[in-house]
């Protein structure tokens, strides 16, 4: 058994342990989850460098997986930390077990060099997410959101699986490396490959939340309890990008001519829908949902280059987005606890009420808008550079213009927080003390957005290193 699997095994065991713990000592489920995840981070950092392929590519450890896995684990830790006050009334053992199983699914997906484990990991993650959305049974909107998420998620999994079966039928292998060679060879029939890749791309776009496959996203973001929205919006997005990189980037790397135009259309439509759709939103979670759609379009800008540098830029963008989205939802969660509101108008006066929260939110919003010198600016710069490198200059210009449109609604949130008079919700709400650990981590999160934006060199270097050797030498 590969040593690099230890982290995954630890997380899977943690899920079982937390399930039992939740039965007898529910209050220990949360600390145990965090301890296990922290241990898994350490284990991943220690064992991640032992790279190789096992069982015909079912399990793969490469520099890419070694970079992504700690990111996924750390993001999940922050997500559990922010969500804790809100989920304290829910069944503890079940919530954290589902969360840990979702994390295990993402780790499996990240280390998959084979269609079988790619799909199983994705499903393990998705099924856990559907259940987590519905876990608060007294919340009717959450049940509706879970139903929508489940139906559309099931549909997208079906499309993905259909694409997989066609790819297997064409190439006769489920190993991604062998598949790349077979698809690049002369024997592969062109039209069948187009159909197969179309289905695979559509399924991936659904999971990533890219327009025009984004319909589920605003409803699910709005309907889910904020703690779960935060979970859905952070680590699983990174996992969905991993799916794209593994399936299209590695498996179909020879068929750039087929999927590059498709990714260009997806990126452009996604950025446009995300930027214009958010302009009229009154609910902060819906706003962040459209913002997610726009950002996924930017992520595709890097991926459509189909080069190692392009995927490096995409991964950097996605990691930055995970950091920013975690911070934004962290503030949303605290305000949710404080004033029981998700309306943007109710954020008025947040700067007076709690300058700390408002400052973190302002940094995050500026960063999401792409204002220098914050993290979001560096991330946008890198993917646009990758797109220009791939020859998509017009697309890059459109991306910049659309990010100007998007800046409007991010700045509106800042304006409401700092310049408007407080509304009833925030003015009259009782004093809720924010736990010290959440304050601390939110502060760290905001500091990361600022500092990594000013000194992106190290992280960017790691991202580029992680992609070295990701593609077959052509």
């Amino acid at each position, binding site marked *: 058994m590969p040593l690099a699997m230890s982290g995954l095994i630890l997380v899977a065991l943690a*899920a079982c342990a937390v*399930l039992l713990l939740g039965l007898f000592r529910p209050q220990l489920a949360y600390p145990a989850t965090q301890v296990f995840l922290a241990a898994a981070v350490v284990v991943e950092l220690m064992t991640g460098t032992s790279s190789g392929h096992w*069982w015909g590519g079912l*399990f793969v450890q490469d520099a890419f997986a070694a970079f992504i896995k700690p990111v996924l684990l750390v993001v999940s830790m922050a997500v559990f930390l922010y969500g804790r006050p809100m989920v304290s009334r829910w069944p503890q053992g079940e919530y954290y077990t589902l969360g840990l199983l979702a994390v295990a699914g993402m780790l*499996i997906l990240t280390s998959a060099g084979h269609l079988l484990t790619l799909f*199983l990991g994705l499903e393990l993650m998705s099924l*856990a997410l559907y259940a987590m959305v519905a876990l608060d*049974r007294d919340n009717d909107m959450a049940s509706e959101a879970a139903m929508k998420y489940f139906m559309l998620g099931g549909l997208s999994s079906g499309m993905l699986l259909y694409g997989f079966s066609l790819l297997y039928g064409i190439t006769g292998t489920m190993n991604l490396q062998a598949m790349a060679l077979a698809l690049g060879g002369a024997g592969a029939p062109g039209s069948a490959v187009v159909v197969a890749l179309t289905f695979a791309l559509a399924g991936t776009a659904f999971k990533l939340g890219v327009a025009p496959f984004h319909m589920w996203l605003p409803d699910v973001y709005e309907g889910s309890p904020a703690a779960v929205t935060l979970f859905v919006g952070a680590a699983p997005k990174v996992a969905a990008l991993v799916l794209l990189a593994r399936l299209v980037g590695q498996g179909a790397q020879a068929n750039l001519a087929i999927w590059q135009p498709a990714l260009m259309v997806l990126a452009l439509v996604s950025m446009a829908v995300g930027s214009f759709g958010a302009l009229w939103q009154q609910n902060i979670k819906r706003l962040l949902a459209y913002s997610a759609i726009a950002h996924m379009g930017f992520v595709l800008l890097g991926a459509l280059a189909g080069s190692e540098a392009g995927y490096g830029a995409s991964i950097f963008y996605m990691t930055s987005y995970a950091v920013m989205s975690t911070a934004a939802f962290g503030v949303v969660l605290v305000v949710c606890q404080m004033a029981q509101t998700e309306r943007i108008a109710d954020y008025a006066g947040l700067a007076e009420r709690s300058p700390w929260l408002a400052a973190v939110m302002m940094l995050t919003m500026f960063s999401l808008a792409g204002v220098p010198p914050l993290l979001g600016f560096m991330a946008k710069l890198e993917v646009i550079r990758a797109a220009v490198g791939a020859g998509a200059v017009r697309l890059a210009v459109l991306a910049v213009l659309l990010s100007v449109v998007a800046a409007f609604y991010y700045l509106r949130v800042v304006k409401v927080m700092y310049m408007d008079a407080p509304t009833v919700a925030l003015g009259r709400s009782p004093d809720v003390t924010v736990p010290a650990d959440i304050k601390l981590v939110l502060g760290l999160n905001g500091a990361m957005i600022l500092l990594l934006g000013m000194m992106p060199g190290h992280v960017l270097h790691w991202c580029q290193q992680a992609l070295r050797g990701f593609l077959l030498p052509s």
Partner: protein
Amino acid sequence: MLPALPFYLASAFLIGASLGVVGSRNPVYAALFLVLAFVSAAVLWLLAGAEFLAMALVVVYVGAVMVLFLFVVMMIDVRLAVLHRSFVRYLPLGVLVAVAMMVQIIAALRGLAQGAGHAFPEGGNTEALGTLIYTRFLYPFEIAGLILLLAIVAAIALTLRRREGTRHQDPGRQVLVRKQDRLRLWRLPPHQASGEQLPASAQREDT
């Protein structure tokens, strides 16, 4: 003819049962016909040498899925008149789908007749499948186990909920009850009529 007799018998049962599923007026009968159809299909698979699929069909579909299905059919109020109206309405579409499937199957069989024969693994396909699952594909098999665990946890977490104010039994506590918890013996003076206030002289008799 005679060696192929089991095949024709099972096929006839399968076709008859399928017609019964669609045609019967009572949904319970329809469900039972479906069970018969599954069993006949399992026999067909057995004849074709796919004994593992046959077993799985009987165990999973007949044993588990159909029993649940029967429960559901018996519990919900099925409006037969509405069901029959929609049956007539969807008949043309159904016929179209059936014809399309027929054409595809015939085309596929034509292609198969030209292809190579089946290669049966040594020792039956149950053993072959088992060997593969527990060796080369152990890792995905374990992941499937995790997915099943997840399904169990999610299903129970989503359905089992304690509402405030409902009265429910706790069998564990019922079993643990002792005589002292429920039974109290009072020593009453013999002349006292029943139904009146207990006299102050009445004493609790601890047993």
